[in-house]
């Protein structure tokens, strides 16, 4: 354990997020949540003074591993909050786990974050639901509430988040009697989707499922409308950004973790605190990272140790801890909390709360 200048015990905590690049609004929001949580805790957990070390992964998998390597081997962090996307969190979770450093992500929803080829990565946790939940809810909602019967799916072949959502959605959608007319992959750097969209336009699906981050879905959405595709756009939590092209995505639905319009007092209290500090409403990623940080701080306090092995134990044993984005949470055997899914609609250039669905 490190010693601070004043002789008190110090624990270094890493924070990794995409602060720049294609999904920088995720990182910016998350950073606000992280900072606020530490501030509220007085940069302390138990006997330990918290020293945060931040790094930007640009939402690039290899860059994420680079910065994680630096945080762990050079700065000596014992725990990491982050990263945001599954794209970057999966590789660093493996690395953190191998190096016995605790990692908790607020928002990376792919099951592969905590489980690698059937094996649980014991040091890895998250504060959000997982994609099978999210994809299934989206499919059911489309079938049952929107009464839409056919869908086309476009996803990024290089991102387990979008791959997972695409598959989960497809499975649930077909199981529920819907029909998937087309399912196409693209690469992260693609900008021209005309060929695929022309093909999809001919099939005239009711739904275009776009489980990617806000930049990509805005780009695809625009080109889809250009090609005369009239389908309803549906997506996942990757849409939640002020930089989403609201005009293009008008009328679309997406699954998310939370809505600031949720009347629960915990939520409204949090929204107020956040507004006071930053002058804006917190989005899902600020909230979830705030929750993740608090979960970690609580575990450090409970373990009252800077030994990652003990922190990890404490985290796994968390019982009915109250967080903003879901009442009393505990982790299942894979380090995932059980939480409801919120559905939002893009309407009039804004996000509108539609419903919250508890998974069974």
């Amino acid at each position, binding site marked *: 354990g490190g010693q601070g200048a004043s002789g008190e015990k110090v624990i270094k905590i890493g924070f990794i997020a995409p602060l720049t690049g294609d999904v920088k609004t995720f990182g910016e929001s998350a950073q606000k949540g992280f900072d606020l949580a530490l501030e509220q805790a007085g940069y302390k957990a138990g006997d330990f003074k918290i020293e945060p070390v931040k790094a930007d992964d640009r939402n690039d*998998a290899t860059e994420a591993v680079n910065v994680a390597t630096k945080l762990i081997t*050079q700065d000596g962090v014992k725990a990491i909050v982050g990263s945001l996307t599954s794209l970057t969190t*999966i*590789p660093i979770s493996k690395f953190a786990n*191998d190096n016995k450093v605790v990692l908790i992500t607020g928002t990376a929803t792919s099951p592969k974050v905590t489980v690698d080829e059937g094996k649980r990565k014991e040091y890895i946790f998250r504060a959000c639901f997982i994609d099978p939940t999210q994809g299934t809810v989206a499919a059911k909602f489309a079938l049952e509430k929107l009464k839409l019967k056919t869908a086309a799916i476009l996803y990024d072949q290089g991102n387990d988040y979008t791959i997972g959502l695409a598959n989960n959605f497809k499975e649930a959608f077909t199981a529920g009697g819907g029909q998937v007319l087309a399912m196409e992959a693209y690469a*992260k750097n693609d900008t021209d989707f005309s060929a695929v969209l022309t093909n999809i336009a001919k099939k005239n699906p009711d739904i275009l499922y776009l489980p990617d981050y806000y930049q990509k879905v805005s780009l695809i959405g625009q080109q889809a409308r250009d090609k005369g595709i009239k389908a309803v756009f549906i997506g996942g939590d990757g849409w939640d950004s002020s930089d989403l092209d609201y005009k293009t995505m008008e009328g679309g639905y997406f699954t998310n973790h939370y809505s600031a319009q949720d009347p629960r007092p915990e939520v409204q209290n949090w929204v107020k605190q956040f507004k006071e500090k930053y002058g804006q409403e917190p989005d899902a990623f600020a909230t979830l990272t705030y929750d993740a940080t608090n979960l970690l701080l609580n575990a450090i306090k409970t373990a009252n140790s800077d030994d990652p092995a003990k922190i990890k134990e404490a985290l796994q044993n968390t019982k009915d801890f109250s967080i903003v984005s879901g009442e009393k949470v505990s982790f299942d055997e894979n380090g995932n909390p059980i939480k409801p899914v919120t559905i939002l609609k893009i309407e009039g250039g804004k996000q509108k709360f539609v419903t919250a669905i508890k998974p069974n």
Partner: protein
Amino acid sequence: MKLSRNTFFFFAGAAFSFALVKAMQLSGMLTPYWQLVLDQALIIVIGALGLSIIYGFTGQFSLGHAAFYGLGAYTAGALDKVYGNGNMLFFFLSLLAGAAVAGLVALLIGMPILRLRSDYLGIATLGFGIIVRVGMENGNKLFPVLGGATGMSGTPQVADFDLIFILTLIVILLVRNFIFSTYGRACTSIREDEIAADVMGIDTTRYKVMAFVLGCALAGLAGGIYAHRYPFLHPASFDFLKSFDFLLIVVLGGLGSMTGTIVTAVGWVFLLEVLRVVLGQNFIDWRGVIYALILVVSIIVRPQGLFSGKELRLLVPDHLKMVTGKEHTHAGSGN
């Protein structure tokens, strides 16, 4: 076989460097992070020596070197991940396999495309690099272990400094022996004037392919070691931008100089990491800008590279003393 004087000094120098690193390790000056940087520098040395043979000594402009580095990494990484479990024998076998696959692919692609000249060859190799990247992105459809576009992890991390150091040393010696032999001379004469070399009895196609295969196999070897020292392989790590990295190491070091390649490779890896640390989180955005400026300024200050055609004496065989200080310049240079 008797050691020549320079070979002796070469080993002495190597032993000294090794001892130095060990001392720094023990004293704790070398944190695991800087150890990793050093190891990666040595790995890059091996790969860059490969390109040095291809371009620096044989004059074949390749912009696809990283593809072979990646082929080696994926081959060795996947083999050891599936069969190895940290077993040293498997480590070496997988390295050999990585080098062999890279070399074999180089042979197949090299035979047709090495007929192309300069920029055309460059663009063709670059294109090949992109094809390989697409292959990596979709490799998981045939072999799920490869991970595809989401990357691959899980290779046992068994390559430590000692191993990497010894491997680097062996590679440097072998490359030196190759360059200062009739094969090396055949290569440099092709670089200088392919037609004249042909008319003077040198089977140019054969030696161009040989240099290409050898250089790419070294890239594959470097990749194999990388897979055992860096936990995460991703197709983006092996695309054409990475090939540019190898290219600029070889050019900034000075074409036709092993010394230059080695020094620049190490310096280059450290430069990038030192910048990361020196700039800190607040100025990290400037890292790319400063790096780019350093690149432009160095090439303008020394357009012929650091050691163009010159070698450290240690690398030159004794009985060829008379050729020390010889200078090579790159064939087809100038306007």
